[in-house]
């Protein structure tokens, strides 16, 4: 910016603020802090905060701010140059299995469940699962994940280490590499505790014996279990992600982070084309699609879900959408029984159902404007003139508008054992899809 500046941040984010400043090249940036939170405080309370002390330094807050702008810089603050960052040694040990388990856990490299110790032999075996070279750079830099993921690079070998730790077999490795290639890894750092869903399509599902039948979303298949686990381990290890208080701020966290809602689509039982064909891939290609968002909920909690005759799944889905974060999308996970019934009811294409849901799931402009996501994410876009938000911010309060900005934010995937006609709704957006075949 070129002029003296001072950020003011709530005390909850002390570590994050300092670490971010350091990663951005200003480790001694003068940062000031208020009590936490300031959101929802009255004007009188905010004025009292300004008249009080910085809870980190203990000094009067406004004095801290004016000093930050006027006290001459120290030699350290004027320092320029390059500083290398250490992530520890390239190997750990030699030591016993138990001690290495403890060591890797204590260093924040695991998900706190036992891992497979990544010996050189096991990593070499994992590398046999791909034709790509071990030293091939998969990512030179990664766009920020969550708050501050900085630009960490990684190679095929470094991904293989994480795949070993997660319990993947070498034939799972192309799926893991495809996931790693998208440039965004597990453990999204937002205070919203958002997580991930990994949808897998194509012939690879059967080659790896993935479960897309009974209990498809539960721990009944090695590939489903370990591929999802690996996403989180990669988030912890191949980026600086997943450090609570620093790069991870999920207030309550998210249990989905243990497995990242791996979904192998039941393409044979689905009456619709498989999900990946919507994103431009051929049906015979194997593809992983990555979705992100806060949660997943059971459709049998919907209004009207107990009506046995001619269940209106479209209306049930619409009902479920109403309490979701509207700017995010919806990933509807249909048991084949639900999908087939929807086709019988006229939804012979997913797009027809998405259009119906988009048109019939609405809220008032006032409710939209007062929603969390609109304020933080969409209001700034409205100010930039981006549509439909710019228009939505000008509408009278009681004007009805679609809950989701676009129909294509509503996606469908089919899996399940046909034990009952149930569906689940993940409040998740499609992010990227990547070819798995490319990594064979």
């Amino acid at each position: 910016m070129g002029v003296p500046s001072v950020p003011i941040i709530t005390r909850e984010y002390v570590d994050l603020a300092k670490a971010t400043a350091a990663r951005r090249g200003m480790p001694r940036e003068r940062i000031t802090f208020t009590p936490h939170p300031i959101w929802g405080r009255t004007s009188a309370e905010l004025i009292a905060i300004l008249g009080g002390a910085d809870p980190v330094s203990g000094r009067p807050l406004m004095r801290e701010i004016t000093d930050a702008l006027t006290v001459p810089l120290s030699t350290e603050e004027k320092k320029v140059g390059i500083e290398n960052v250490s992530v520890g040694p390239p190997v750990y040990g030699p030591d016993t299995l138990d001690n290495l388990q403890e060591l890797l856990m204590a260093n924040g490299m695991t998900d706190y469940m036992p891992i497979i110790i990544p010996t050189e032999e096991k990593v070499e075996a994992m590398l046999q699962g791909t034709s790509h070279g071990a030293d091939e750079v998969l990512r030179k830099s990664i766009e920020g994940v969550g708050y501050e993921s900085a630009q960490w690079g990684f190679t095929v070998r470094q991904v293989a280490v994480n795949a070993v730790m997660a319990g993947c077999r070498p034939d799972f490795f192309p799926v893991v590499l495809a996931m790693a290639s998208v440039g965004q890894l597990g453990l999204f750092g937002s205070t919203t505790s958002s997580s991930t869903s990994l949808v897998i399509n194509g012939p690879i599902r059967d080659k790896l014996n993935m479960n897309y039948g009974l209990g498809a979303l539960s721990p009944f298949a090695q590939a489903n279990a370990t591929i999802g686990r690996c996403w989180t381990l990669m988030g912890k290890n191949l980026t600086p992600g997943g450090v609570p208080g620093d790069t991870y701020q999920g207030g309550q966290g998210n249990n989905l982070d243990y497995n990242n809602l791996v979904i192998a689509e039941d393409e044979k039982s689905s009456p619709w084309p498989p999900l990946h064909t919507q994103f431009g891939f051929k049906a015979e290609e194997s593809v992983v699609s990555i979705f992100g968002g806060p949660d997943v909920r059971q459709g049998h909690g919907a209004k009207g879900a107990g009506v046995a005759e001619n269940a209106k799944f479209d209306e049930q889905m619409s009902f479920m959408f109403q309490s979701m974060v509207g700017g995010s999308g919806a990933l509807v996970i249909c048991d084949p029984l639900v999908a087939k019934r929807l086709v019988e009811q006229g939804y012979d294409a997913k797009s027809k159902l998405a259009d119906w849901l988009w048109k019939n799931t609405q809220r008032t402009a006032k409710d939209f404007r007062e929603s969390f996501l609109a304020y933080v994410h969409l209001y700034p876009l409205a100010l930039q003139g981006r549509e439909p938000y710019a228009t939505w911010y000008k509408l009278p309060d009681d004007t009805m508008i679609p809950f989701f900005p676009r129909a294509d934010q509503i996606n469908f995937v089919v899996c399940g054992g046909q034990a009952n006609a149930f569906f689940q709704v993940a409040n998740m957006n499609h992010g990227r899809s990547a070819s798995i075949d490319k990594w064979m």
Partner: protein
Amino acid sequence: MKLNRRKLLSLLGASPGLLAGSGTESGQQRNTRQSSVAAERRIVAVSPKGTPPPITLSAMALRLDTLEGKTIYMVDTGFFGGGALLQGMQGWFQQNLPSVQTVFRKKAGVYAEDDPKLWAEIKAHGNAAIMAIGH
């Protein structure tokens, strides 16, 4: 198939240590001891970490001699509470350092987006900036 006797015993609620200290050492016990030694084999684990780039240190902008008569931009990133706090701060300056001119701006785009237009405006017309992150 080799049984992991240590694991089996622990599943049955018995400590392998109890057996290790009892009676003379039979052939079976010797095998167990060898298995234990194997379990205590020392191995090397490869680090799973990625490669962070080096950090380029940036010099901080020179500080002002005084705030008297200066223009300070108050920048709201768009997170909850940040704007209201800065507006309260404008009142504080008016009361305590009235010669300071404050200019309130909401940064364009979602909170993490860059706003080079605003930075240019601050550089051209401001002497300092205070940025509130909110929460």
